[in-house]
């Protein structure tokens, strides 16, 4: 009988589970391609770029919006750069801060008279407008944007300039973003989410972007830390407010502009920047919803003629959309329908076993992901990563949660006006039910009072 159960479970898993397994296979194959590419090209990367004999002027634009808590750390990381301080211009562009960001800036400016650091203030909030204002007023040969909650590795600017100086075709590039989280210290739910973020970022940047760089298929110049040649960025439409992903929009814009000139958008792997781990599930929800929404908005605007499936398959953007959007709908329905098949006559045991099998498949993917991220890290960081090897067991759940946040983004892009801050639907329902409950209790109390008065 065991044989029958095994055979039926495998049959069920392959037959019905295919709707969930194929999206998994897409992820696995992407991860494997990244890994193989990384292992093949690892040695090439290590070829030292020639030292700079001339240090061009660089401008760093930092949009500031209620960033008092992180701005100092960001500015400090710029002061500590190995790149000569006299060749760095910092422009902080305040866009509607209501906290004491300016005081933080002011103290810092007084403490570092050797730095060229300016404060521009805009009346209204808006990251895109702030970035554009900074880019217009910058004087650097290379323009960089750094988020106020991001801090740079001490060699970051030097490595960026080296990359641009040694590659005249490089028009714009993104740095490697890491999540600054101490690994293995905590085990709260949020800590686990943060560890998954760490792995996810390493995979996306140190491995994924490296591959995209080779294929000239960088999808997004990260808003946290990106750099441009001055002439290129000023000839583009700059950061636009039409989508919630102004960084992806700009990336597509630049790619279109430099297509004919043979320029390219790249990735500077040794230009490291660090961001704070996500502070709450609400923030994670609004971040992922925004990313997904931005992806559809930008690609929607990018295609003047939306391609059919065959054209989409031969276009890297189309392939990303098939994986992120088309398969997501199939996956959504089947996540619920697989257990539902019990009601149609399948034995519950087979369904439970199939789900266990599915978890094992996802575990395999996460193990490959973790291993790929591990190989993509420096030896020092690998030691830290070894402390959280067990996170692979949690990563399928993280992937699952993030998937649902993305689904919300797919719906929001068609139903909601764009906004950076959104309330998650569970909280919305809770709030409404709570309001209804309060109305109900107040109604009952009124009736009781009326009853007493009548007595």
């Amino acid at each position, binding site marked *: 009988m065991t044989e*029958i159960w095994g055979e039926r479970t495998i049959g069920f898993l392959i037959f019905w589970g295919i709707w969930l397994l194929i999206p998994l296979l897409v992820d696995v194959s992407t991860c494997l391609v990244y890994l193989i590419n990384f292992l093949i090209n690892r040695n090439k990367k290590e070829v030292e770029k020639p030292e700079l004999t001339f240090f061009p002027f660089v401008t760093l634009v930092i949009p500031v919006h209620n960033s008092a808590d992180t701005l100092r750390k960001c500015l400090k990381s710029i002061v500590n750069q190995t790149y000569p301080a006299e060749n760095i211009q910092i422009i902080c562009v305040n866009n509607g801060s209501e906290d004491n960001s300016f005081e933080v800036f002011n103290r810092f400016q007084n403490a570092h008279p050797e730095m060229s650091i300016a404060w521009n203030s805009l009346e209204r909030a808006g990251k895109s407008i702030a970035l554009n204002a900074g880019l217009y007023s910058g004087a650097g040969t290379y323009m960089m944007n750094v988020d106020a909650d991001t801090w740079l590795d001490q060699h970051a600017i030097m490595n960026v300039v080296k990359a641009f100086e040694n590659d005249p075709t490089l028009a714009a590039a993104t740095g490697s973003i890491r999540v600054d989280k101490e690994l293995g210290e905590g085990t709260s739910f949020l800590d686990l989410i943060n560890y998954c973020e760490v792995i996810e970022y390493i995979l996306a940047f140190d491995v994924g972007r490296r591959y995209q760089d080779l294929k000239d298929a960088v999808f997004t110049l990260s808003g946290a830390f990106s750099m441009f040649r001055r002439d290129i960025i000023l000839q583009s439409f700059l950061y636009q407010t039409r989508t919630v992903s102004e960084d992806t929009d700009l990336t597509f814009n630049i790619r279109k502009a430099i297509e004919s000139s043979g320029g390219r958008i790249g990735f500077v792997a040794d230009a490291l920047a660090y961001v704070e781990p996500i502070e709450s599930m609400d923030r994670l929800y609004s971040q992922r919803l925004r990313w997904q929404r931005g992806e559809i908005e930008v690609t929607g605007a990018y295609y003047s003629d939306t391609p059919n499936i065959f054209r989409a398959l031969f276009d890297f953007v189309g392939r990303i959309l098939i994986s992120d959007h088309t398969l997501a709908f*199939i996956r959504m329905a089947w996540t619920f*329908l697989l257990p539902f098949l019990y009601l149609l006559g399948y034995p519950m045991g087979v369904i439970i076993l199939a789900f266990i099998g599915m978890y094992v498949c996802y575990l395999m993917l996460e193990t490959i992901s973790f291993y790929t991220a591990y190989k993509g890290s420096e030896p020092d960081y690998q030691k830290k990563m070894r402390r959280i090897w067990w996170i692979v067991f949690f990563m399928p759940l993280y992937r699952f949660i993030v998937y649902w946040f993305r689904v919300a983004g797919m719906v929001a892009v068609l139903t909601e006006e764009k906004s950076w801050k959104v309330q998650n639907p569970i909280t919305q329902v809770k709030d409404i039910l709570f309001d209804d409950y309060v109305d109900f209790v107040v109604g009952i109390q009124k009736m009781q009072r009326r009853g007493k008065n009548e007595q």
Partner: protein
Amino acid sequence: MKLKIKQQNYLLLGIVLAILIIWLWPPASIMVPDCELDGNFGDWRGRSGIDDMTGDGRSGVDFKRVDWALNVNDPRLYFKIERYRPKNPETPLECRMFIDINGNGRYTDKIDKFADIVYQPRNQLRGDVSVQLYNMSGKVVGKYSGAWGDGIQQGGRRFEFALSTEELQVLPAQPLHLYISDVSGRFDNMPDSSDIQWSPFPLVHKSKAAISILTIFWLLSTAFLYRHRIWALHYVWGSVGLCFILILLIHASAVEYALESGTSLILHYVLGYCGILTYIFDQSPGTMLVLIRFDQSWTTISVDIENSGLIEMSIIFCLIVFYPVYRGLNKIWAGLLGVLGVYLINLVRLSVVIILIHEFGRNMNYIAHTVFGRLVFFVLIVALYWRLITRPSLHRTGRKIEGD
């Protein structure tokens, strides 16, 4: 829930309509009446079965035909065996049905079973049937008996019986192989060569009351999410909930039977046109016999819940109807286009499966069904989803942004 009067009226109308649809939904029995073990064989007319040639067994054990069937909400496999009219209608028939439970072509595995069947025409009107089901170590695992056969008056030819899937240890959609022989095994086998392959999937239909309650709850909660503009949950809850309800309603109903009959009929004609011989039955919706090219034997494939495309059609319809890229009546048209698309894709998938079985034999069944057919299906479905969901989303979003 704070709804405006107009919205309340729509909701009420929706509930009334839904309940009416559920209670008036045509049951499977209007297309195919259930088989009953009663010694009457009218309910076997048009059922799936295989004929056996005449004169290859001695009188009394010369098999003519075996039929098989399933009932709704009944976990038993029904069989009808018929022999050529014996010289003496009182002649008893002792035969044995061998069942290869794990479908590997061997009949001697531990899990395999055999049933000893004795049919004895008792009087003018009725014949007794007794069946003992054994496992391979010779232990009886099930006993069934009743007046389920022809009497002497009808020539002592036919009898029916049913075996429990639980005692057989059969799970839904598990491919079985079986054949019948006279008890000595020397005279006649049915079929004469090879065996019958069958993947029974007992039809389970939920009660209308349960579906009604589920529907009312789903309608109220979806209206709540709509009223409060909680769009992400509205979409997921609305589309998945409607899909559950649709599948529960359609499964094991006349609509599923009609769908399966229609599918097998189209395949029969289209493949026949291409020179691939199939056989279909009036009263066994979706059951097809496919002729295997190299040994000219028949094997069965079932267009059932697993490959009728019913679930996939319901899914695409619901995903589109609730998808905010479509507005008004376009939702319905696009949903129906999706259903038609899945139906056609499913025909392609089934054709691939049948062609593979026709060319490479019954051993190909599992791989053709689970792997090749499924892959073809998946790829084409992704293309359809791209066309009906992703592409319009990009188009509308892009147009909106350009408009901004």
